[in-house]
């Protein structure tokens, strides 16, 4: 029996102005290894469905994991009842859904090697080899390696006539070497982020060579100096670092639900309010943030969002100016938009879809420019790779970031490694200090698989990207 069609038929009979169902099966494999000991090998599956019922300007949502006609009907009725309760409150403030049509379509992540077809012992052997390589350096006291693979089969159907099947995959590795000295402990990681890809992504990372570098740089960090005090310095931020900075300072503030105050109670609101559209100088004219849910290997690339809106490409920041938001069908009409940009995504079947950051990246510089040329233009600065501590206020204005690896730049050259570096800045200072972005040859993506948002918290996925970028005159210093 097609439960999707059953649910939609019943929702229509019950008077839904709009309704949809997501039937979602997700399987995930996680392997975690620490100091040559396999701590966790887990294969999980999650199967169920969530139904949204929209009537009188209000949503009702119900989810269930029991698959039979009675339970599906019960769940539709429950969603309807909840919507009716919501409508009592919303009678003077009705929600409106952006215009959309139905689609009959399918989507499949183009993968070469299904990670679930790779024998577990092959994965474990690779992880042990990497672990051994890191632990072959005596100061390394702890070496960890985690690999996650997941696959989601989804059927989305709606009262607009949509019937969309999608199959997506995600793979993410992460390994860390931690060294201990007399009065300090430092770590270095390979955290390339997740990718909507198959096992070929892991193979492309050359993990063994990376393990050697990670262990050596962890030791380097332990013996490195920090910076005395905070001063205005230049920064060169590597794509492995910049992904997180743009996620926090551009991605989140341009989610329309935040702008509208829908996340005010927990994740926060946004400084990037609608009167700033088309006139706010978010960054220098070199700064172009492209939202692109069609990006190959992008974690938000899935054909359609969970409103049944097709994936698209648009500019969030164009030539430095705030251009548009990431929107959903229930947020877009509030600022007068007729159509959604397709940013509605739920994590699991039991989650209500929320306004999510799309795949969002900083476009590479248009002129030919190498990272070495960026460095050559810095007299007093720091280059940062990888992610460390990150903290930003609830309006997404003021922030402080650390990193994973730091290099001192003096008189146009990298002179030594550093540790315990922090920089502090805010919007609009930070992105308006950009004066150089390396060209497209140096552009790299970085996928986030654990973006926490919502009440209750959901863990979202999206991909960011950048070329190495130079920021002038930022407050940079060592932690105490």
């Amino acid at each position: 029996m097609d439960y999707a069609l059953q649910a939609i038929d019943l929702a229509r009979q019950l008077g839904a102005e709009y309704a949809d169902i997501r039937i979602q099966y997700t399987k995930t494999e996680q392997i975690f290894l620490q100091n040559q000991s396999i701590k966790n090998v887990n294969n999980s599956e999650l199967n169920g469905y969530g139904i949204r019922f929209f009537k009188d300007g209000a949503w009702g949502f119900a989810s269930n994991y029991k698959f039979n006609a009675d339970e599906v009907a019960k769940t539709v009725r429950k969603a309807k009842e909840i919507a009716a309760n919501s409508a009592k409150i919303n009678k003077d403030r009705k929600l409106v859904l952006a215009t959309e049509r139905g689609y009959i379509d399918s989507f499949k992540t183009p993968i070469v090697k299904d990670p679930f077809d790779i024998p577990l012992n092959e994965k474990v052997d690779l992880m042990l080899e990497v672990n051994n390589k890191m632990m072959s350096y005596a100061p390394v006291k702890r070496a960890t390696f985690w690999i996650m693979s997941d696959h989601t089969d989804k059927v989305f159907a709606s009262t607009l006539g949509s019937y969309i099947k999608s199959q997506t995959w995600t793979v993410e590795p992460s390994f860390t070497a931690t060294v201990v000295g007399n009065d300090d402990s430092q770590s270095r990681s390979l955290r390339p982020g997740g990718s909507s890809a198959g096992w070929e992504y892991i193979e492309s990372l050359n993990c063994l060579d990376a393990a050697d570098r990670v262990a050596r740089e962890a030791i380097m960090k332990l013996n490195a100096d920090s910076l005395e005090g905070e001063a205005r310095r230049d920064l060169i931020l590597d794509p492995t670092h910049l992904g997180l900075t743009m996620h926090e300072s551009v991605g989140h503030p341009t989610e329309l639900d935040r702008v509208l105050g829908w996340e005010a109670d927990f994740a926060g609101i946004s400084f990037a309010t609608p009167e700033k559209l088309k006139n706010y100088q978010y960054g220098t004219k070199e700064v172009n943030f492209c939202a692109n849910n069609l990006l190959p290997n992008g974690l938000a690339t899935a054909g359609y969002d969970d409103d049944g809106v097709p994936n698209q490409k648009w500019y969030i920041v164009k030539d430095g100016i705030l251009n548009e938001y990431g929107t959903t069908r229930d947020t877009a009409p509030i600022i007068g938009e007729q159509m959604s940009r397709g940013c509605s995504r739920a994590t699991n079947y039991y989650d209500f879809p929320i306004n999510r950051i799309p795949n969002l990246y900083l476009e590479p510089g248009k002129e030919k420019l190498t990272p070495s040329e960026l460095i050559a233009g810095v007299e007093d600065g720091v280059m940062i790779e990888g992610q460390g501590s990150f903290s930003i206020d609830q309006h997404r204005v003021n922030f402080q970031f650390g990193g994973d690896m730091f290099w001192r730049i003096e008189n146009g050259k990298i002179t030594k490694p550093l540790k315990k570096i922090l920089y502090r800045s805010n919007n609009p200072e930070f992105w308006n200090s950009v004066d150089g972005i390396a060209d497209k040859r140096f552009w790299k993506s970085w996928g986030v698989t654990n973006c926490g948002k919502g009440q209750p918290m959901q863990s979202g996925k999206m991909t960011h990207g950048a070329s190495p970028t130079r920021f002038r005159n930022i407050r940079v210093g060592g932690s105490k």
Partner: protein
Amino acid sequence: MRLREFAKSVDLEIRKLCDADDFSFHISESETLETRFAQNRITQHMGKVHLSGYISVVYDNRKGSVSTNDFRIERLPELLKKAKEMAMLTQPDLEYIPTQPKTELKERKNCYDSVVNLTNEAMVDIVAKCIKRAEAEGAQISGMTEKEIEKDYTSGKNGFEVYEEFASFGHSMTMKRGNSETKLAISVMQMEKFDLDNELNNLAIQLNDLTEPHDMDARAIPVILRPQAVENFFGWLTWMMNRRQADEGFTPYTDKVGTQFFGEKFNLYSTDSIKGLYMPSAVGEMEPFRPISYIEKGVINNMPVSRFWAKDKGLEYTPYPGNFVIAGEGVSEEEMMKMVPEGLIINNFWYLRMIDAKKGEITGMTRDGVLYFKDGKIQHAVNNFRFNEIPHDATRRILALGKEEQRSVEAVMPTMLIKDFIFVDKSTF
């Protein structure tokens, strides 16, 4: 079939079918109602039924586990086969410790009818009252009201078995007027402990205190941390204070057990003697819940120790806190303000992150309102700040503690006066 009986039947079947050296089984069923409201309307409204669980097997110290929300009896052979295949293909866990034997557990009551019977209509009424009050205050209100009923069953091959039921009601709300915004959140296991009118009155008072914040630069200054801020700030200790990590040199607590490492006024413990506080029957690695003193008068009495590390190093297994209490002394906020020439009252912190694991240094920002006081009186609201602080250092600067307050089902916290709290940056708002 009710979850307990269903879980028991699955457990029996696993025992029949599973030839592993050891196994553990866990199943959890939850039923939730969640009403999200924002800008004086309901934006999302959910009713969920969810099942989750796992079977973990061990063959020659090799582990494999499967998690699923489909535990139908006819699926068990397939799930066990998958787990076994995974175990056989992997390498041994060199730190494997067998599951616990049958253990006498004290039954704890964490599930009350007043929450279980709460209807969706009643929850919507709560939201309606919040919106009405916000409108009366010329403000907008956002938040979530939620109810959760959870049932859990855990067992192991060697005889350990526990079944627990838990029900909680949570309500959090942020009121915003102009550029001022503030929040209150509470969770309870009995509706009798939730007083909406009182919460709304306190929220409105808190908001009214925040009008026209003055500009102030960051510096080290005395702070009165209200209970929510104390819980967020010191909640980090429960992550950082791991005995193995300390012994291996990763944290500031290396060789500090039994020493006066925290301030004398600082006491952190878990308890079974506070009514209304969540107390599980079992915690951590299948151990009965017991009250534990982690820090007493600044001396580290205990840090969480895993069963492996306990066995390897001849220590007593010590779980992470099942609930946690920071002891108070009953000093009022008014009295605290008179104990220092000036200072800040902090309602809450936000986005706390580790910046130096070895030193135990964390960063974070103030949120939901900051008040400047001088000469024993609140003067005005000020902008938000960023702190970079070390919790154990901060406890050495505690000047006074307020009365203990319970704002969540798992923690009891006092207000706390700390000297020279280190703010390193001011916010632009």
